[in-house]
């Protein structure tokens, strides 16, 4: 099950904890993977670890021209592009009353607008191939909200509405568009929380623990697979029961 031999996948934010695991899972299933991110070094290290079928395609998602160029670079490297995983994301947390326009805009730009541009950029090839998988990594806070994350939650909820709209448009072309919404996952992003914050969060998670990046990657692998062809416009919530939506 879940054989991606012959498929090509672009993963943004592949230098991060979740992105790297997603890339590994798709690669292990036989796909070629293009690893994107701003920091080249960790991407090169991951590519070296994966060996064959792994390519580094750096991009700065806050820069429109860089985003526009990314699908082309990925297609050039892999010879095609069948699977897009919009995983890259940044946070600029602040209380609503203190949030600057810049904090708002930078999170919207990187988390939402770049995903839109990448999706638009990969559609032509997928339409012609009559096959495609787009998987957007959102967040539990897009569904529940979170104090201090008005910008991040808006971007993540925005991705859900955007994904559903595109899912309608391209379902008849064999292209599916879905989201995976992680809860609290043990990564560098959540490492920044102090012990007090962590223990408070854990009381809200029925599973009693943070998730592992591998558990997000598994959901992505399913959605990328031929077996998931009838699932579109959906969000898989992987959050240990933290929000049952």
């Amino acid at each position: 099950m879940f054989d991606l031999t012959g498929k090509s996948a672009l993963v943004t934010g592949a230098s991060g904890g979740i992105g790297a695991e997603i890339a590994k899972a798709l690669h292990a299933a036989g796909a070629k993977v293009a690893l994107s991110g701003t920091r080249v070094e960790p991407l090169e290290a991951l590519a070296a670890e994966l060996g064959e079928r792994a390519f580094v395609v750096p991009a700065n998602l806050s820069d429109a021209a860089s985003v526009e160029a990314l699908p082309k670079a990925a297609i050039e490297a892999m010879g095609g592009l069948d699977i897009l995983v919009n995983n890259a994301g940044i946070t600029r947390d602040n209380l609503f009353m203190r949030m600057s326009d810049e904090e708002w805009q930078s999170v919207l730009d990187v988390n939402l607008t770049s995903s839109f541009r990448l999706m638009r950029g990969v559609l032509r090839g997928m339409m012609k191939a009559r096959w495609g998988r787009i998987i957007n990594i959102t967040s539990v806070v897009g569904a529940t909200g979170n104090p201090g994350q008005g910008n991040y939650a808006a971007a993540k909820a925005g991705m859900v509405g955007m994904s559903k709209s595109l899912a309608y448009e391209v379902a008849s072309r064999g292209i599916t568009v879905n989201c995976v919404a992680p809860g609290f996952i043990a990564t560098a992003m959540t490492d920044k929380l102090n012990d007090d914050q962590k223990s408070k969060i854990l009381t809200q998670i029925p599973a009693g623990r943070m998730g592992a990046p591998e558990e997000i990657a598994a959901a992505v692998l399913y959605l990328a697979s031929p077996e998931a062809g009838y699932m579109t416009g959906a969000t898989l919530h992987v959050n240990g029961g933290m929000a049952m939506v």
Partner: protein
Amino acid sequence: MSDIADRVKKIVVEHLGVEEDKVTETASFIDDLGADSLDTVELVMAFEEEFGIEIPDDAAETIQTFGDAVKFITEAA
């Protein structure tokens, strides 16, 4: 029929799966040939590739019939 019209017709027939004789000068892609809005986008993409031209969005909107497409491409190519 011109070479351009033949090539356009071939694309339309292949893409929309319609009989060749249905693709007349005034045949509307949407009303007569069963295309949906996404089909028309795909047709324009196919025309662009076949003829190596760029069809801007506002021009694409004016291409409603087979005749419109042939006329536009003849002028652009």
